[in-house]
């Protein structure tokens, strides 16, 4: 995207934006010019937020959720049930389950799902860390709350083969979630029902 008609500061922003998932060059230039044309306040707010994102947030060393303090507030909350672990693909899925207000256990964020065709394998996810957590003891039930997609199901089946020998109860969210959809878009009522209707997984 080299251009003599545009200053480097604008083309650099456009290039950076177009590297984001779901944003093509057309959208990137529209966004850049939107910020440029009299939305200076928004641009600076974005800059601050991006700066804080990099400087202040990190992953919780226990559950791998995004956090500003380590361990995260959920992991360090003594009032929560430390015997139950809910395994999700992404931090936004965790957020969706928290919004139901019906779950009081802990979480483990995998940061993705197994997708061999996209080059995502077991070693690319926080699975080793999950196994170590379970081995450390104290956990009685693991709820596999990966998305109701074909990748999510594959990931859940794989986790079952890997965690079953450790002697914990392993359950999967109940039916009712829209097939092929993402957990983060499911409404609180549907998610609550899926949590209540969770059933033991068979190997």
């Amino acid at each position, binding site marked *: 995207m080299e251009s003599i008609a545009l200053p480097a500061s604008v083309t650099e922003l456009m290039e950076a934006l177009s590297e984001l998932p779901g944003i*093509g060059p057309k959208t990137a230039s529209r966004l850049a010019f939107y910020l440029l044309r009299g939305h200076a306040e928004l641009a600076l707010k974005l800059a601050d937020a991006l700066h804080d994102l990099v400087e202040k947030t990190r992953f919780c060393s226990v559950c791998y959720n995004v956090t500003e303090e380590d361990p995260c507030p959920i992991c360090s909350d003594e009032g929560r049930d430390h015997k139950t672990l809910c395994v999700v693909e992404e931090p936004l899925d965790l957020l969706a389950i928290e919004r139901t207000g019906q779950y009081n256990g802990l979480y483990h964020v995998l940061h993705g799902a197994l997708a061999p*065709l996209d080059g995502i*394998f*077991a*070693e690319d996810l926080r699975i080793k860390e999950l196994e170590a957590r379970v081995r450390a003891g104290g956990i009685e039930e693991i709820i596999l709350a990966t998305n109701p997609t074909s990748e999510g199901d*594959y990931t859940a*089946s*794989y986790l079952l*083969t*890997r965690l079953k020998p450790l002697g914990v109860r392993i359950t999967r969210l109940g039916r009712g979630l829209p097939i092929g959809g993402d957990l983060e878009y499911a409404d609180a009522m549907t998610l609550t029902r899926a949590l209540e209707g969770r059933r033991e997984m068979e190997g």
Partner: protein
Amino acid sequence: MGPMYVQTLSLRHFRTYARLELELPPAPVLLLGENAQGKTSLLEAIAYLAMGRSPLTTTERHLINWSAVEGGAPFAVVSADVAYRERRERIEIALQQTPTAGGERLGKRIRINGHPVRRADLAGHLNVVLFLPEDVRLVGGPPADRRRHLDDLLSQVSAEYVRALSRYRTALSRRNALLKHLRDEGGDTAQLLPLETALAEAGLFISLQRRACLHHLTRLADEYHRRITGGAWLRLHYRPSFDPLRPTEEAARQPPLFEALEDPPPREALLAAYRQRFEAMRTQEVTRGVTLIGPHRDEIRFIAEAVDLGTFGSRGQQRSAVLALHIAELAWLREMTGEAPLLLLDEVLAELDVARRHRLLDLIGSVEQTILATTDAEMFPAAFRRQALRLRVEGGIITPL
């Protein structure tokens, strides 16, 4: 379902056609015209609605008439009103090119009576048997063509078969990607297990369906083959790359036992045999980085009078075998659905002698609607020409004669 025929066909930007609106009768239809004017594309369009995929290409963007697209997102639409005894249905498939983050994407939307459906849901709505001159190459060509031909037939009647094929393909491409990764980078082989379970379940369903279908087809095809060749027997021999009904190597070398269908071993035992085979193959498959057993490696051979026609058959013998197969397909579809399918014939008569031509015309008389494409109307008896609707096809434009 009643006798079925295509009442109207409309095309937008499909192959040679910019736009076509065509009304068709429940009778033979003769498409007349020179080559490359759109006769075959019209037959292809109807088969596309029946199968949910084109029998002529696996690259769907080739179906779009790019030169007819005037600005906006390129698209193609094929739709038909199909009449049954007491109702009518509208089947539509639309392709649309849309820009995405990673480049262009070809979207495919299928509708029945305006409701969006999946490809599997097309099963049982419109059934066709398509005769193409190049089908003679099925006999000696690559095994993938014979598998695809059989899959297209089964997909017309069984939504479950279409779903199993799609589950199988997903699991297969994942497993192959994983095998390559394990070979090149290493990793936990237990990641293979859920994919192997998926492959075993879908693969078992697919191979039992193929076996049952071929069992019927071979009986029907043999009957017609004897009639058109003056007594030579024909057998469609199914050679699964892994036969869960005969899981040991030695047993697999024997011809398939169709009697086994009557009383197949319990499903759990078959699935277990499948998984054991995967386990036994693991080292070899990781080394090769590809899945070596399953329906994607099945073979179907045409055997006549103990001779493998794919390897040793003359062109004439291969033609008779394919004709017998197509006629068997028609009979099979009729048995499965209780109704005659549509016949779509492309330049088939030209290749046949007088006796075989007459048999084919008898066949046309036994179905509700046949659409025939030809460069030479003289090939057909005058009486036949009189009762058929005759249409001239020229440069993607159709005019009644």
